[in-house]
């Protein structure tokens, strides 16, 4: 065997090894969740997804309240985060030299790297704190949504910006050459041209916030009840995993594993959906 072939083989092996290192942790976590919590979902599927948690020592119960709470929180977060993120991203791309865009880009770069727990603290202090907050509600679900939206916006904005910057400039010029207004050029020509990128941007943002627990704990506190009001604490899946997982009770720990399995599958499903939608949108031109 000559040296070239040998080197080729070594590099190929290294590539496979890195791939393995990438896949092993994911498989290991998934495996662990299935072993520890899978049986709970299989044995009590309806109860697990629809029922509220039980006190320690009493068997049964589910994470229905946390799913409901998460849906509310994420729903409001998306309602704020998607339009703001997309508009900000478009502004960053289409007015890239304006002072406002430069400032916004700087701020969003910091926000992306910002510890999410601090986003929670800031949101809580400004909005919900009974002492300093504008709305002075104390820990509340809406504050968690705002924090999640704040975490999501810079990610969506920068991804949308990147998507817009991939559009060749001659497409933009071609649209202006038809006498179209900026509004038409951006929303009728450019946005549809990168709709796949925009959908991906939103899904990346969603994947980021769906598993966040720290900012929720800081802004919303911990709740083991059904969602009732925006101005009161609500339960959520990541926080439930945190609380149940750290508890000394066997039943809670099992349910924490089961909830983790559900969350993991959910995030994988979002990723899968992103790929499917992206494909479909592109061939659907």
């Amino acid at each position, binding site marked *: 065997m000559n040296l070239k072939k040998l080197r080729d083989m070594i590099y190929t092996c290294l590539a496979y090894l890195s791939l393995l290192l990438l896949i092993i942790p994911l498989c290991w976590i998934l495996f662990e969740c299935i072993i520890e919590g899978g049986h709970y979902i299989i044995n009590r599927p309806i109860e697990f997804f629809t029922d509220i948690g039980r006190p320690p020592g009493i068997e049964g119960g589910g994470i229905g309240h946390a799913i409901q709470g998460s849906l509310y929180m994420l729903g409001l977060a998306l309602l704020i985060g998607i339009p703001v993120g997309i508009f900000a991203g478009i502004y960053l791309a289409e007015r890239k030299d304006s002072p406002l865009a430069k400032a916004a880009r700087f701020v969003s770069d910091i926000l992306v790297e910002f510890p999410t727990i601090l986003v929670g603290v800031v949101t809580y202090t400004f909005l919900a704190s009974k002492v300093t907050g504008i709305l002075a509600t104390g820990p509340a679900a809406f504050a968690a949504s705002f924090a999640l939206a704040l975490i999501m916006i810079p990610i969506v904005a920068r991804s949308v910006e990147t998507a817009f910057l991939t559009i060749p400039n001659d497409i933009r010029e*071609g649209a202006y050459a038809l006498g179209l207004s900026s509004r038409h050029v951006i929303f009728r020509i450019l946005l549809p041209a990168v709709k796949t990128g925009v959908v991906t941007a939103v899904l990346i943002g969603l994947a980021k916030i769906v598993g966040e627990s720290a900012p929720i704990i800081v802004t919303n506190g911990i709740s083991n009840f059904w969602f009732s009001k925006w101005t009161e604490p609500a339960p959520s899946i990541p926080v439930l995993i945190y609380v149940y997982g750290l508890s000394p009770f066997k039943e809670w720990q099992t349910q924490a594993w089961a909830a983790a399995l559900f969350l993991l599958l959910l995030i994988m499903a979002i990723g899968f959906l992103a790929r499917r939608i992206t494909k479909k949108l592109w061939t659907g031109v």
Partner: protein
Amino acid sequence: MMENVAVSVKDLHVSIDKKEILKGISIDFPKCAVTAIIGPSGSGKTMLLRSINRLIELIPRVEVSGKVWVNIGGKFHDAYTLDSSYLRRKVGYVFQKPNPFPHLSILKNITIGPMLNGIAKNKKDLKKLAEEKLKEAGLWDEVKDRLNEAAWRLSGGQQQRLCIARALALEPEIILFDEPTTGLDLYNTKRIEELMVRLKEKYTVIAITHSVDQAGRIADFIAFIYNGKLIEFGPAATVLKSPINELTELFITGKVLDGVKV
């Protein structure tokens, strides 16, 4: 101003980032004729063309002074006080590289301009308009069975004719071409040249061309631009056969012009 003039440029200065690109150009482009703009790269041909329909305003830090008068519907308008949207509809632009909207269908590429500009609203009118313009651009027979296919599936030459049809769909009176045959094969080049010549029956054609031969084939008038200045302008035959200026002669015979000061 004379009525057989389509575009009248008066003392046009353009600078980008304080660097002067066009240094006082005055020229009258004749109506319903093909005028070719020739000159070496970097001489300001594209800037001159883009200042006619104000596409130049998309360039950051650009400064334009002087006057551009465009003859629309028999009346002269100051291009820079006219609504830029209306100006660009009446003065179409075809780019060097074909730039159809890749995510839109062949049909939609043509109808989106008239639709968004409110020229035609209902689907039937739009489709009729598209057919008419595709025929005018000599593309209809090739695409009539695949109007709903994505535009990027067309070949380069077809894409360029689609872009011409797209400009025609806005019912312009003047069409600007920026080296429209760059990168196309001989067959497609010939077809687009023939199209430009045919278009002058209804429209005024102003075309930048990189080749003196092409200018000879299509142009009624030739303008030679060098270093941001108009060096020579006149009937094609005169400019090509007996140019007045020495620089023009050097250029059309393929001599090096670098470093020649004007």
